[in-house]
């Protein structure tokens, strides 16, 4: 299921050949993320992902051997990326989270959208792997 989310993001981004439309798609994801519950009391220092230019909070739960993530950000574009990553990673097992790597992020081709976003996604990937207690992916 989480793999399916990832596939959908990747395929949609690939199908949109106009950069403005790709941008719009990420903003649509941000709006979808806004509709998900993320109470203000979750926006704590502990849930904050450090080192981002806009603040990103990620909350992690584990249930029945699977990981679940929820996230928020102040910036719309980052929020769209947070949605991609939290949806992709939710429902995965330890092993599946370990297997997700920097190439999967590269395949989203966010660097073509804006280079900063790809760098941010890499950081988010490593942060979420760490939250899940798994070794963080390393750059090839």
């Amino acid at each position, binding site marked *: 299921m989480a793999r399916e989310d990832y596939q959908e993001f990747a395929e949609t981004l690939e199908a949109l050949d106009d*950069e*403005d439309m790709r*941008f*719009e798609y990420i*903003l649509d994801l941000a709006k979808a993320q806004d509709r998900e519950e993320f109470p203000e009391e979750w926006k704590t220092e502990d849930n904050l992902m450090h080192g981002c*230019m*806009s*603040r990103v909070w990620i909350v992690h739960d584990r249930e029945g051997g699977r990981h679940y993530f929820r996230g928020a950000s*102040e*910036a*719309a*574009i*980052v929020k769209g990326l947070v949605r991609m990553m939290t949806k992709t990673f939710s429902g995965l097992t330890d092993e599946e989270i370990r297997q997700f790597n920097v190439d999967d992020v590269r395949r989203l081709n966010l660097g*073509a*959208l*804006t*280079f*900063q*976003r790809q760098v941010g996604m890499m950081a988010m990937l490593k942060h979420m792997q760490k939250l899940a207690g798994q070794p963080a992916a390393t750059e090839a």
Partner: protein
Amino acid sequence: MADSRAPVLANSTAYNVEAVRRDFPILSETVYGKPLVFLDSGASAQKPRQVIEAMRDCMEHQYSNVHRGAHYMSAATTDAFETARERVQKFLNAGSPDEIVFTANVTAAINLVANSFGRAFLREGDEVIVSEMEHHANIVPWQMLAEATGVKLVVAPVEDDGSFRLERFAELLTDRTRFVAITHCSNVLGTRVPAKELVQLAHDAGAKVLLDGAQAAVHGPVDVRDLDADFYGFTAHKLYGPTGLGVLYGKLDLLNAMPPWQGGGEMIEKVSFKGTTYKEAPHRFEAGTPAIVEAIGLGAAIGYVEELGRDAIAAHEQGLLNYANERLRSIDGVRLIGTAADKAAIVSFLVDGIHPYDVAAVLDRQGVACRVGHHCAEPLMDRLGVIGTVRASFGLYNTLAEVDALAEGIEKAKRMLG
């Protein structure tokens, strides 16, 4: 980028920005298929081919370590390195090249003063004044000194519009004030501090003054003797020179009274296990092999800036600033952060309802490079009650058409995100 309106710039009809742009190879690059509009010179400026060639020429034809080696190349490189120091001396109108210490950057220059002067001459209870608009580089070294020695940090206020009022600064001076470390020009707001009057006030109170000139030295002439500054720091890479090299100016008697901060080669007169004696300034503060090629690059950058004329550059940039203020003010929902009367060409702004990061991301897609965030000035962000800003900082190569590109990018961000 063609700029047909250049003649409207006051006092700068002789300034040929298109010819200037041809000196900067990187400005003909494209990003995301669009012309690069580089409005992030406040973080680090691009380099003219005169600097690139001077550095390459050094490495290809005349390179060795300096101040040692009984051979032609060493003597010739030492001569070029010390000539660069003399160029810096003249650039700042310092009294002697011995007052020019090469450091790694302004951060290192400030750390040098805090660790050497601070630890030698400041005592528990002494007061050091900084301002609310300092870069972290001019806050943290003094906080570290305060922790180590019990020196007290006093913070001079900034007005809501980003201006700096001398009378409010003067109220903070006490008989315990021993040092003032203050920016000559804010990296976020562009505010110029009335430095000459400030130095006078501080001296009257018996305090020494360090001016952080990281931005100010780029945007207009600096005369350390006229300012009567005790210390002045600036960095090569914001002045169209290379990274890895900063400058600390210090009055010679002060520098020679200060103990070395870092030990090693080059800074010693004689070393034995019974004790070591140190060279005079500036060499006592330059332990280890210095940034030789970079110093030669800085010399070339100074030559480049002086040939264009520092007043002419300042006039050109003032025209850019005036036009940027006018264009941005005409966009609904844009709020300028920092509108002091005396400003360098640095424009911070916010767009209502849109996170600055998103604004910068849309601008980036249009090829417009700005900086976003707290700009290493978190206390200033807190003071102004903002999470960060988008900052467009202009340099000698920017054009009015690039201001238009910025304004159009903001309009686009509003359409997409508003």
